[in-house]
């Protein structure tokens, strides 16, 4: 049975189609979820895609957090449902307090789109088990508010518990503290990542195929997970 991976569309989601494509290329069945519908339609995992939900006018992710679908996702995530938040999705996960810290305006104050090298720091999450720890991957980053901040205690705790999932290598594109590009919750089922793995799944359109690993990881995780 193929795994069903939900991709949420908020008003203003932009990379939802790309996330669904990545899910499909990874070998799972993408299921489109609508922000106003609280039901998860039996999906095995959820991707919160990039974009500008509700225009992201107040604070990125601030309004999306209150969408009906998010209430269900927050509960399900606490129960172990694998959730990947990419860019805007990462911001939403922080606003919803599924992940600690916050994403703020890039230190240089500009939107920045470039091909970025990341080092996978933790291969123990539902979304990174296909990688080797320390492996470097090339994935596009594109954001205006991708600067990860948290207080020192939180940062130390993330480091100590191995919850920094990926770090920027060869230049930090937004000023994130400790070069953090991705983090996870204590259980490892919820991951937020600023760069866009869904844009690195086809040789024709991406800088590499490295993004695919995030999506194949969750399939591996689901197969291994007790039913």
């Amino acid at each position, binding site marked *: 049975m193929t795994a069903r991976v939900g991709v949420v569309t908020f008003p203003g989601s932009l990379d939802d189609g790309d996330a669904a494509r990545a899910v499909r290329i990874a070998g799972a069945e993408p299921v489109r979820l609508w922000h106003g519908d609280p039901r998860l339609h039996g999906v095995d995992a959820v991707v919160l895609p990039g974009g500008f939900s*509700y225009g992201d*006018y107040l604070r990125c992710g601030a309004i999306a957090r*209150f969408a009906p679908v998010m209430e269900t996702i927050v509960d399900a995530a606490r129960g172990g449902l694998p959730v990947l938040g990419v860019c805007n999705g990462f911001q939403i996960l922080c606003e919803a307090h599924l992940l600690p810290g916050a994403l703020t305006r890039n230190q240089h104050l500009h939107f920045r789109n470039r091909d970025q090298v990341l080092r996978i720091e933790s291969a123990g999450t539902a979304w990174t088990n296909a990688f080797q720890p320390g492996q470097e991957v090339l994935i596009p980053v594109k954001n205006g508010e991708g600067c990860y901040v948290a207080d020192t205690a939180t940062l130390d705790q993330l480091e100590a518990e191995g919850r920094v999932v990926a770090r920027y290598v060869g230049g930090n594109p937004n000023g994130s503290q400790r070069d953090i590009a991705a983090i996870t919750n204590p259980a490892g089922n919820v991951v937020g990542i600023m760069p866009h793995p869904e844009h690195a799944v086809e040789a024709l359109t991406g800088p590499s195929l490295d993004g695919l690993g995030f999506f194949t990881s969750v399939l591996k995780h689901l197969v291994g997970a007790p039913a």
Partner: protein
Amino acid sequence: MPRVVVDVMLKPEILDPQGQAVANALPRLGVSDVASVRIGRRIEIEFSGEPDLDRAREIADKLLANPVIEDFTVRLVEADETADARS
């Protein structure tokens, strides 16, 4: 030490998509008695010496506000309205 606060708001006739987005989100939080929301910037300036209102007004005019679409006010604020005293 008192600070100078510059409040910059969009002129009333200019579209404020930010405020509109927030106003539209409120009903989902169960708030239905808000007629309008406008969002602008609040800038706190701390001088090394005496706070200088005229200087602040000049900075606001040249740098902080875009006179084509924004209005601003400049005022002196005692510490208790500024960040230090926030809950």
